[in-house]
């Protein structure tokens, strides 16, 4: 059982008999009053999104799911194809089901596919992925103060803020749980 204080981004829980994932989360606590947990959740079966505000007395069941190791094969027309590492069966997920993970999927990457009553509904990525920067504004040497961040685009099309010294063609490591830049990868 989860308590409201367990709520956080990416938590999977049962709501009205369907599995949901928290996609946005805000902790709100006015003055000396009780805590409120504002959540945006995605129904993992239908892909539809809802807004709900929970109170500290609310409890939830964890989503009743199982994980299987699979390999990402390719994406075609909004469909993401994976192969089961054990029986080589192929399955597909929709863009909504893949969610933010699409920003970090690279062909042949190992990941975990989440099944709900044998239906694929979501994937879990490795915590860290290394991706190539495909577009970066030039670094103005000596500019170590202004901004401290600059936006770049990586090979999957994902836009991320990085320190100013990162240049096009370099490989960087991203934390897939937060979507944030971590470090430059040498070689």
């Amino acid at each position, binding site marked *: 059982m989860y308590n409201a204080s367990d709520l956080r981004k990416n938590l999977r829980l049962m709501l009205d008999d369907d599995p949901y994932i928290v996609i946005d989360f*805000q902790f709100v606590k006015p*003055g000396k*009053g009780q805590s*409120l947990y504002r959540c945006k959740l995605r129904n993992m079966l239908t892909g539809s999104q809802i807004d709900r505000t929970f109170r*500290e007395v609310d409890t939830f069941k964890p989503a009743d799911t199982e994980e299987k190791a699979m390999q990402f094969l390719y994406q075609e027309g909004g469909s993401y194809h994976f192969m089961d590492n054990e029986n080589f069966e192929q399955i597909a997920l929709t863009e909504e089901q893949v969610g933010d993970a699409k920003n970090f999927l690279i062909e042949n990457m190992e990941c975990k596919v989440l099944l709900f009553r044998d239906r694929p509904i979501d994937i879990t990525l490795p915590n860290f992925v290394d991706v190539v920067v495909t577009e970066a504004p030039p670094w103005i040497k000596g500019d170590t103060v202004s901004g401290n961040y600059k936006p770049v685009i990586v090979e999957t099309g994902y836009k991320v803020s990085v*320190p100013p010294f990162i240049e096009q063609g370099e490989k960087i490591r991203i934390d897939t749980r937060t979507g944030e830049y971590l*470090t430059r990868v040498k070689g």
Partner: protein
Amino acid sequence: MSAQWKLEAKRGALETRACVLYAARAFFLSRDYLEVETPNRIPAPLPESHIDALPAGPWWLHPSPELCMKRMLAAGYERIFQISKCYRGAERGSLHLPEFTLLEWYRAGCDYLQLMEDSEDLFLYVSGTLGIGSRLTFRNGEIDLAKPWERLSVKEAFDRYGSICLEKALEQDRFEEVLALEIEPRLGNQKPTFLYDYPLAFASLARVSKDNPAFAERFEIYMGGLELANGFSELTDAEEQRKRFEKENRTRSRRGRPPYPVPEKFLDALSRMPESAGIALGVDRMVMLFADASSIDEVVTFTPEEL
């Protein structure tokens, strides 16, 4: 794996933080306040329904220095301030850290209206020290700190911004929800707002209003939708305070939280405490305002997750 660059990027905000702390100290010292340090580890935290103290051995880390500071007031320290780390369990979000910094000040012989004026002067003093004048940019808006700030009663705020009136909200146990989700974002957007006169159920340690006994002389400061401080005319009736503690502890038990020991030494001192007023200001949020930060994470050296 450490994200070293994130810490490097905090330098500007940390410099603002140091300056805010320096200016706040200078402000209170210039007004003859005594800076005090009371213990952070205490045997009995304030029994409040919705604030959890973190255990430290058989005692607790203080969720605020309120109890000790009021014992000092009762002992004749008439103007005191403290800047201290405070600790609250199960509070983490873009405006909350389980370990955070509070600035509290207490003054004998005054009430919450005078504290509001102190607050106006403090912010103007700090912005002056930072050299930014009275206007500051926060979250794409401009807030004018020039006196006087807006004064809006809780009742008026519900009428003006809420989907239901205050009486209905209390009846349906939706006070916090309407306040946090509908009202707060609208407060303090051009000028800072004092939201004042809270219903008795949310009186905490505040004195009941003489003119309007359904309300307590408590206020909060809002700027750019951000709640910054909570102040009140202090309740000096020990018996009434004991009843409120018992009620808070009953609410705690009902919600599955441990009740806290009644702070007897505090209650004993309360009967000797002069008429006074006190306020707790969130220093981290104050720095957020002056550094135009979107999250509390940006204005502290390390969040728990970064340790």
